[in-house]
């Protein structure tokens, strides 16, 4: 780490620039403070919570500090920095703080105001409907998707034997890059990666090899090459089981497997050459990339997690709150209706009793029995 000296006093030209630009002098510190706050709080909390030395710190102070960090990052971050290109246009992603500001107070409050305005006879059912529907929806939409996906992916990682989560979830392009067998060392590196299991490597290769072998268009030589590749990978896995003693052998078999994969890919490229586009597509589908066999396996293992988390969030924010509101309102109105009927019955019964009394006694009462 190299310390850098402070900037010396301003030169006349620069001083003139600052002198003229009042707006920058006034607004820069505010902006600087606003944009730095989440980072400063995070660094402070990380430093303070690094080594908890007491139970109080571990179970009380640290959780409070960490939740402060979370709140600061989610509600005070106004740094617009994420953009995606949609054709010619750049779509801007509001920062978490801006999103929270837009969606919590500025979306829920006007809806509540409108609900109060249009409520009839003091009926506040829409008001409470909005509270029950929109607060969980926005909270889930903004804050639940990532943790849910991470949790489910971690579970899938244990189940599938493929490393899918590092500090963050391994993104699709990262998986494609990291798990491609594009060098002599790549296969060995995949096997040695913590989180990947030999069984997963075996299964991944089997999935693709099976399709190459069972394909009618594959010649005997190609089938033999694929079988040889399977044997080599098997030997590599065996050598890996020996620990450090087998390390050199793992490298050797990894290089051998890479050469076989290169040969198979070359065969496929030659087969594709000179064909029409439709036939090329057919061959590409029939012979899936053997170079990316593990990358494909990683993608497909993550797919159920993505689908499940997406469906869960859809149900959680789309269907569940509205369904619950419907149910809740039905229950409340059924209760009101029951009370109303009971009141009606008791009123009628009282009136009838009064009339019967009057009929029997034939006397005009001088008092109000209902008061």
């Amino acid at each position, binding site marked *: *780490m190299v310390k850098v000296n402070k900037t010396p006093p301003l030169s006349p*030209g620069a001083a003139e620039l600052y002198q003229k*630009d009042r707006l920058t002098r006034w607004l820069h510190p505010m902006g600087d403070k606003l944009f730095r706050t989440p980072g400063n709080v995070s660094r402070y909390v990380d430093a303070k919570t690094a080594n908890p030395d007491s139970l109080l710190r571990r179970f009380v102070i640290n959780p409070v500090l960490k939740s402060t960090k979370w709140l600061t990052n989610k509600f005070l971050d106004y740094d617009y920095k994420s953009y995606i290109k949609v054709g010619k246009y*750049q779509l801007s992603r509001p920062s978490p703080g801006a999103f929270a500001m837009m969606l919590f107070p500025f979306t829920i409050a006007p809806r509540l105001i409108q609900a109060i305005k249009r409520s009839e006879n003091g009926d506040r059912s829409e008001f409470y409907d909005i509270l029950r529907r929109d607060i969980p929806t926005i909270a889930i939409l903004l804050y639940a998707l990532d943790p849910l996906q991470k949790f489910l992916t971690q579970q899938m990682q244990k189940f599938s034997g493929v490393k899918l989560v590092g500090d963050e979830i391994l993104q699709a392009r990262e998986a494609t890059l990291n798990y491609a067998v594009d060098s002599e060392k790549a296969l060995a590196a995949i096997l040695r990666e913590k989180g990947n299991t030999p069984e997963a490597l075996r299964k991944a290769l089997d999935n693709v090899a099976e399709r190459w072998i069972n394909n009618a268009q594959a010649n005997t030589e190609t089938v033999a090459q694929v079988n040889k590749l399977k044997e080599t990978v098997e030997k590599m896995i065996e050598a890996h089981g020996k620990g450090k003693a087998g390390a050199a052998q793992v490298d050797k078999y990894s290089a051998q497997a890479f050469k076989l994969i290169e040969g198979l890919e070359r065969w496929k490229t030659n087969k594709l050459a000179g064909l029409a586009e439709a036939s090329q597509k057919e061959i590409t589908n029939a012979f899936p990339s053997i170079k990316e066999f593990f990358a494909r396996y990683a*993608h497909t293992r993550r797919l159920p997690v993505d689908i499940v988390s997406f469906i869960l969030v859809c149900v959680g924010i*789309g269907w569940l709150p509205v369904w619950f509101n419907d149910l809740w309102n039905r229950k409340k109105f059924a209760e009101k209706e029951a009370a109303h009927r009971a009141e009606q019955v008791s009123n009628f019964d009282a009136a009838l009793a009064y009339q019967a009394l009057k009929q029997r006694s034939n006397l005009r009462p001088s008092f109000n029995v209902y008061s």
Partner: protein
Amino acid sequence: MIYRAGTRATDGLLKIFNLISEEYLYAFLALDVVALWITRILKGLDRGKITYDPKTDPKAKDMGPWEQLKYTWRKNIQGLNWANAREEALREILTGPGALIMPTLVYAYARNKYKGSAMQLGYPAMVEMKNTYIDHLSRSHLNGITGKISAKEYTRNLSDFVVNLFDDPHGLHRKDPKYRELQEMLKHRIEIAHPATGQTSRVTVREYIRSWADEWAKKATEPITKPPKIDGKSFDEMAKELKEALIHKYNRQVMPNGAAHSGEVLVRTLQESGKGGKPTSKIQLRSLDEVLNNLKYFKDYANTVYETHTKTPNSKIAEVAEYGYRRLTRNKFVFAIIATLVASLYLFTLPRLVQKEGHYPANRLYQEGEENAGKDQAPPKKTQPSAPQPTRPVNPPVRVPFQPGGPPPVIPTRFSPQPQPFIPPYPAPRPPLTYPPYGAQYSQYGGTSPW
């Protein structure tokens, strides 16, 4: 198995879900469409719908079975809660994308006004790049020049800056354990094809980075050098080339960082530690995508620095760079606030525009009664003096028919805002409990009220 590799279903699903899981914006839009638009509109139609029963309709008795089926179907469609669905649809469709479109419009204006996209750089990255750039400028001979700097010289200097991101020419980090690793990378020879001739030649990574940086800086400073227009490579193509060299031809072949970090390269940056801490120069593993993304926005800042220095030639360029950063922070701050406010105000006015007053269509069965539900009721006009009338008949109050003198007592009930005359028949039989008409609406949930 749905997730078997290579099947068409898997391929299609992978394409969709890779996009959704990688980019939050796509996830947000997908969830908005699927979870909020589709689900809520469908549920909105269902909630408070009036189910038609042909058995209770004398009109349907004379119809043939097919006619009756068609009639029932039509009646059931008419009975869906269209008013509620319309409200849900307008509200949800305008809310989610609106929260994205409003800031996008504001930033499009900002880019246009300030000729560049530097303010789109995230603030921590901006501070880091600015610190590194100022450090670089203060060490360069340009900082000593009091007078106009030629655009060519500035371009060369910018190229040096890009090289120095990946290199440590002054040997500042000799004691750093990563320094050796960095030097190994820079000395490594890779095979590169000549863009014009296609002939491959072996060059060191250092040489390649130098040639790439020269090309990049030349393209980045085009707004200030204003060369004649030639169709050259785009920044995206150049980024792809650098990735090919550093990741595929070095990282993937040498694998110094293990399989899970192939996309990362060693970069020298100046980071600030702690609150108000001095910037500290570090060699760190960084995602090359991130570095290239930062450079994409940084180039506009670098050009602004040059233009500002041209206007005030008696200032030091490092100081102008600091001033440019402060100006950029100001703009970033102002437009962040404006973008958030514009989007917030848009969202704030939305319910007033899309939701009718005086009516909550989701609860129409409860509020209006089944007979009146679905009939469009205009909200009470403000000019009408009387209080709004209840939309359904209320519990009739019981009037005791005879009272000595004065009006007869009215028994108040919670549901009777407007007393209505009602005289029970005499001798009074117990009236049947046919009111209010909830029995029918529960028929859709199995005939009787579950409550």
